[in-house]
């Protein structure tokens, strides 16, 4: 390789009926990566996937795959596998015929194609002797067939559009693990569109978070979780996501909370240490599992417990602090005493955003 990425998306723009669906998208994906496009519905993630598949043409910009410009190549000449939310298996063909469809298009000989069908079905954990119609299978099995069909052609890229969304919660978890395992075995460069941040965190090497037709951040799951680029990402990623505490710098050492209360935290959390001049309105991201609960001590954030959820392995404490709902995750063995508590953020540099723009301070 010459050092250029396997898949490169360059300033791609697309509008629908005057509205901008994709705004100047740049993305570089390395060979063998598992990348998720994560965002709420309408953020443009599916549009980007369709452009990669060749089903939509961008108004502007360029797509390069393996060194070649494929921007204007029709979908049937791209050799890119596609997996849909509703499986899109051809109901008039048997399972094996479905998997063979792309191989027939390649003009592959019968014996070789049959062997490839066996391999593909085995890869997704299905019995290759299945002679049934897709309609007779469960949703999870149908999606496995759809994946087998997409990988049978040995695609240069595997694109998946919300592949788990039609499955029930238990199956979704199972198939999501299988997707990652399959990727590790085949090494096919994979791009998955999802609105489920847990799905993206669990499966991906890197995640591109999208909002309103833009990519906000493109990083490994750990980086995305630990250092979100915008308040939107902090409030979206994680289950439960980070608490966003609105506060205004009232001096070098103290913040004013939304309800007018003054909060004098540990020095490292104070406005001065974070470059917030007096009067600056900010949002502080507080991860539920990093907060600790106490009753006495310096720098605690006064809060009032509203509800406690027991989740088996842990407890979620929902409390009001400075006029904002804050969620704290504590060990199941820990007991919360009294409605009045103090919340202690970890003694490290906090993640702060500008309240107006949502950008990192």
């Amino acid at each position: 390789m010459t050092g250029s990425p396997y898949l490169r998306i360059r300033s791609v723009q697309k509008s629908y009926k005057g509205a901008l669906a994709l705004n100047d998208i740049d993305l570089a994906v390395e060979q063998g990566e598992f990348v998720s496009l994560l965002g709420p519905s309408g953020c443009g993630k599916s549009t980007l996937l369709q452009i990669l598949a060749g089903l939509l043409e961008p108004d502007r910009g360029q797509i390069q795959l393996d060194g070649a410009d494929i921007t204007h190549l029709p979908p049937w000449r791209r050799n890119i596998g596609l997996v849909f939310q509703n499986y899109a298996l051809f109901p008039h063909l048997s399972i094996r015929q479905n998997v063979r469809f792309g191989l027939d298009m390649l003009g592959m000989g019968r014996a070789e194609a049959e062997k490839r069908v066996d391999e593909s079905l085995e890869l997704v954990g299905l019995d290759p002797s299945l002679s049934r119609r897709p309609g007779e299978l469960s949703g999870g099995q149908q999606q496995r067939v759809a994946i087998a069909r997409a990988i049978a052609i040995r695609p240069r890229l595997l694109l998946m559009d919300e592949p788990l969304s039609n499955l029930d919660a238990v199956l979704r978890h199972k198939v999501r693990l299988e997707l990652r395992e399959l990727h590790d075995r085949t090494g096919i460069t994979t791009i998955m569109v999802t609105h489920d941040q847990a799905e993206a965190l669990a499966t991906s090497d890197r995640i591109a978070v999208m909002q309103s037709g833009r990519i906000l951040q493109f990083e490994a799951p750990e980086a995305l979780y630990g250092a979100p680029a915008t308040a939107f990402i902090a409030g979206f990623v994680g289950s439960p996501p980070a608490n966003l505490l609105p506060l205004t710098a009232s001096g070098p050492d103290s913040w004013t909370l939304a309800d007018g209360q003054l909060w004098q935290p540990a020095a490292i959390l104070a406005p001065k240490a974070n470059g917030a001049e007096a009067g600056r309105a900010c949002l502080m991201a507080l991860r539920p599992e990093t907060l600790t609960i106490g009753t006495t001590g310096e720098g605690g954030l006064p809060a009032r417990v509203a509800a406690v959820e027991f989740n088996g392995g842990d407890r979620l404490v929902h409390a009001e602090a400075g006029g904002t709902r804050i969620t704290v995750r504590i060990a199941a063995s820990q007991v919360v005493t009294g409605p009045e508590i103090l919340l202690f953020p970890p003694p490290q540099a906090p993640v702060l955003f500008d309240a107006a723009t949502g950008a990192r301070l």
Partner: protein
Amino acid sequence: MKQTPDIKPIATALLVAPAAILMFGVFILPFLFLVVLSFWSQAPGSVGMTPSFTLANYARIIGDSYYLGGLWTTLWLSGLVTLLCLVLALPLARWIVLHAKRSKGLLIGLCILPLVCGALLPTLGLVNLLSPLGFINGALKSMGLIKTSLPLLGNIAGVSIGLVQAFLPLMILPLISTIERIPHDYEKAAMSLGATRLVVWRRVLLPLMLPGIVAGSLLVFCASLTAFVTPQILGQGKVVTFASLAYQQAAMVLDWPFASALGMVMLLFLALAGLVGALVSRGLGRRT
């Protein structure tokens, strides 16, 4: 679960009775009479009928090239009309399903219009359009494309145009309902697997549209086979169809037994068409 209301059998019978009696009186009974009549014979030189059991009427149809010719014309005319309707309706139905959003109801309404305004009115309109001094010939002449009028009336061309106009909705409606049930993702999936647009049609869309194609074709074929008003007016007596032969015998020659036999032959071909349709649908049903 939905509960069916508890209705007593006697109440059910009472509810069904009016329609059943009406159907028996005005459809089943005359139909049985028609069957019996086709085996009777006409008294020579009179309009009286002799009850008997003779196959003479059927033998006359098979033995006379005039009637066999009429049958043959009707069959291939119906086949042609079915094919033309299919070719015209496929792209139209697909376009309505894919692209008509708010206007869909209106477009489907327009498609149904020829069905609900009867055969006479649109056919007379067509006479005006197709006649040697009609709109089409006039327009072509004034553009200098032709010198003498194209013969569009009193031949197969005119009758086909009229029948296609009349029965196109019978093809469009089943097609729309089948195409609506084909998710757009099938096409995308096929294209991603290397299928060009043509191959997508051949290997994915057409097989999935087949139930609608079979239903629509059956409807158009049967309707064309029995059509009377349109071939009569646009054929101007020069296109001999089976329905017009039966009409001649029944209303002009007053040979009711022979007219009945002609009707029975027509019915036989309707049944055959229905059988072929059923067999194809069953074959499809086994595949999906």
